[in-house]
């Protein structure tokens, strides 16, 4: 019996001790008519070798394309040591560190992780992780509503340049509690927050403002101005940030006069593979005064009864297992292993290393942007400072042109970017293109020629 160590003798001995004659008898409290039939819908088990063959065949189908899609998930070089160490059985197969003395490894690691997140964001307190960036933003929104004692509003204001999928996740989650999200317009000229439009919200009460940096289009927002504006109006400020970019750009804790109140984001760029979208992890950090509104686990440093340094779950009175219906969130299991990887990633790179990754990503993205500027039929829409993503627009105005071009490129083995056509009238046939440090000059040249060929071929077909 694969994975089940019982021999016939073991089973017999156990049944004898229990005093039943068959395993089936152990289910005698279940009404007989409820007992399940054989699960005919489930296929026969496979040995490991046959399983590997099946899965290898499947994995191979998805392999090999050169990917220029970003849009919230970014391909970076992951040092070999990251997962070599992360996958050690003691990290991989431990539970949440409930028994602190037997979990000091995980606990200290999370404390170190929290410290690194605080350093990156210039905040005081980080939790041990949330599920991902998008659901993390929902938690930040809920947190801001609980935390903002000055405001009675159940509304939160969003820059329109927040990732549209994040907007959707937040709405789908928080609307169950009657919380509303108001989305500000985008300035089509620079694909950033329309600063002129701020006035329109002068009279309204919001619990918080969400500012993305960089924004969904890769561009940098005027975070200082926005932060000051919002805090002046009594809102909390939630900075939605890319952790790699934090090595290069001002961190949320330094935005405006007082700094943002909460920083949240997707941790995937820190050593987590693309892997179809998960497991990633959401990081969240805040100013000290908000700590009691923080969702999820927090690890604290303390001492043992001999005065020796040790680490333990703390402020558990915020959590579901203690507070039940009064908890700050229902989150229990979080993304521990991804956090382990990210902590090792940050340690291996250090501050200078991470900043090189950021710079190199920006540099490569800019090279591609520059090289595409002379391509017929392509307009570069990005015209502000940006990180490692930018927007191009295909000038052909046919519906679905961008989709067809991307499809053509995919057939050439290039995933050419994220199609923005759905995300606003002004974004028809726009493509969000991402380049990181992993791309070579040759990769960029391939992109360009694939794009040119695709535009020609698709134009020809139409």
């Amino acid at each position, binding site marked *: 019996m694969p994975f089940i160590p019982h021999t016939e003798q073991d089973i017999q001995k156990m049944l004898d001790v229990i005093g039943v004659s068959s395993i089936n008898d152990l289910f005698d409290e279940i009404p007989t008519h409820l007992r399940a039939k054989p699960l005919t819908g489930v296929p026969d088990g496979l040995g490991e070798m046959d399983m590997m063959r099946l899965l290898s065949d499947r994995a191979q189908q998805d392999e*090999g394309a050169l990917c220029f899609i970003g849009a919230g998930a970014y391909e970076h070089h992951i040092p070999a040591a990251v997962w070599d160490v992360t996958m050690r059985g003691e990290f991989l197969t431990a539970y949440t560190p*409930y028994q602190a003395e037997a979990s000091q490894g995980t606990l200290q690691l999370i404390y170190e992780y929290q410290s690194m997140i605080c350093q990156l964001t*210039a905040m005081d307190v980080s939790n041990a992780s949330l599920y991902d960036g998008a659901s993390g933003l929902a938690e930040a929104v809920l947190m801001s509503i609980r935390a903002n004692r000055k405001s009675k509003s159940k509304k939160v204001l969003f820059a329109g340049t927040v990732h549209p999928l994040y907007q959707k996740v937040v709405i789908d989650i928080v609307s169950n*509690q009657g919380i509303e999200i108001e989305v500000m317009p985008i300035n089509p000229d620079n694909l950033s927050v329309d600063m002129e439009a701020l006035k329109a919200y002068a009279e309204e009460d919001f619990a918080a403002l969400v500012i993305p940096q960089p924004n969904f289009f890769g561009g940098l927002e005027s975070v200082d101005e926005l932060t000051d504006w919002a805090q002046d109006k009594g809102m909390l400020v939630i900075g939605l940030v890319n952790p790699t970019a934090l090595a290069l750009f001002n961190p949320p804790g330094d935005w405006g006069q007082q700094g943002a109140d909460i920083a949240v984001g997707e941790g995937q760029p820190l050593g987590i593979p693309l892997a179809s979208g998960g497991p990633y992890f959401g990081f969240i950090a805040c100013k000290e005064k908000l700590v009691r509104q923080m969702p999820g686990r927090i690890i604290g440093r303390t001492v043992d009864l001999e005065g020796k340094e040790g680490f333990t779950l*703390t402020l558990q009175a915020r959590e579901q297992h203690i507070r039940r219906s009064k908890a700050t969130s229902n989150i229990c299991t979080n993304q521990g292993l991804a956090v382990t990887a990210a902590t090792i990633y940050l340690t291996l790179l250090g501050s200078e290393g991470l900043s090189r990754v950021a710079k190199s990503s920006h540099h490569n993205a800019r090279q591609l942007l520059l090289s595409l500027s002379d391509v017929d039929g392509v307009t570069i829409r990005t015209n502000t400072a940006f990180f490692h993503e930018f927007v191009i627009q295909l000038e052909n105005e046919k519906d679905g042109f961008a989709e067809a071009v991307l499809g053509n490129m995919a057939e050439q083995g290039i995933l050419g970017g994220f199609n923005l056509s759905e995300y606003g009238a002004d974004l028809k046939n726009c493509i969000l293109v991402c380049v990181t440090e992993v791309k070579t000059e040759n990769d960029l040249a391939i992109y360009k020629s694939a794009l040119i060929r695709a535009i020609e071929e698709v134009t020809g077909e139409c």
Partner: protein
Amino acid sequence: MLIFKKGSQGRFATAQAPKKVAEVADLPAAMLRKKPALLPEVSELQAVRHFTNLSRRNFSIDTQFYPLGSCTMKYNPKGAQRAAALPGFINRHPLAPESHSQGYLACVYDLQNILKEVTGMAGVSLCPMAGAQGEFAGVAMIKAYHESRDDHARTEIIVPEAAHGTNPATAVMCGYKVKEIPVLANGDVDLAALKAAVGPQTAGIMMTNPSTCGVFERQIEEIAKTVHDAGGLLYYDGANLNAILGQVRPGDMGFDVLHMNLHKTFATPHGGGGPGSGPVAVGKRLLPFLPTPIAGCTEGDSGVKSYHWVGQDKLPDSIGRLSAFMGNAGIILRAYIYAVLLGREGLHRVGEFSTLNANYMAVLMKNAGFELAYKDRRATHEFIITLNKQAKNLGVNAMDFAKRLLDYGYHAPTTYFPLLIPECFLIEPTETESIDELEGFVEAMIAIQKEAENSPEIVKGAPVTQPVRRLDDVKAARELDVSYAE
């Protein structure tokens, strides 16, 4: 020692970052970070040595028996890990076109079907990223269902008092009030109290079966009838699904919606606190509300299957999206692979042998003089003992026993949960542990009992073999130190 203290500013020993510093003069200086983040600055060796040694300060399934009740700490086959890390899977961008995602989509689709079959439900979505998010999705669907019927009076979710903390917390996250109902001394729900509690305000009930008391809720059909008759729906917290895999199905018991913890029942590793995955399965009524995306499949003329995503465009009443992309994709893969390895017979055996192991341990414990919380009941995949007498008579409580077990090389069972049993251990051995481990654990408990009787200070002073002795939790909360600063 903290990694920060091993660091030394100015050291740059990494081979992991780009060798050259790229030019970024085009970026406005005002936007650039002034003070670098104080990350550790160490060599690869220092990093590897630090974190390798940290890992050695953990208990884990790969190193110890870990009978943590409600958590299903079973073995995580290494083959699942290996296959899920194949380059085609690991490098696939979540927004890659379907043309470049057929392999992954096929796995998602197949797992959806396996989970439907296993639970006896009509539809599955794999989106939720852990049990608690699965609960959220489930209760949000219940809410969407009532609202779709313009039934706005239902403001309450009923929860038995033994329920896991995520249940009431979830209800609140969905905008519901929580009504707790008592559990009887025999472990079953107080049916009379339930009957008194239901009404037009009842949106539904959240429960698990077997319950967190480690017994099978025998009145489940009557409970279902009671709640359904009142117009409510039944939510099944699938944390305990391991107990009944292949034995009885939530769908057949009358549940309308449930989540599963793939990181429990489907053997994906717990990673020191996640990531998990908490798929939801629903009966017909709730099908339109499933969170998206879901994998769909069409069969071409030639029998070739082609897979696609079903998003909110095709499922307009969906409660929507729970993550930026598609949940904990890699965990879903691992669970699928586990199901492939076990197959029909194997999944069936899970329920059998997890139950056999728990009952055997329960009887051994009882024979050794420990008090079972539900002596007259059959154990399921887990069972509860109470150390109330030891706490009262010897001054050695469940916490002390738990800490002392660490010295014996066993992870402690879940302690002080469910809350209604004083000084309790919730013990879940799982099916992958051998009779030797079970007996070893019971022997350790017997030895500790002797110590508690003869030299209780040993037990109260435990652990002594771990990297630290007992920690000062009060100090941790009072003098909050949650981030290192130089």
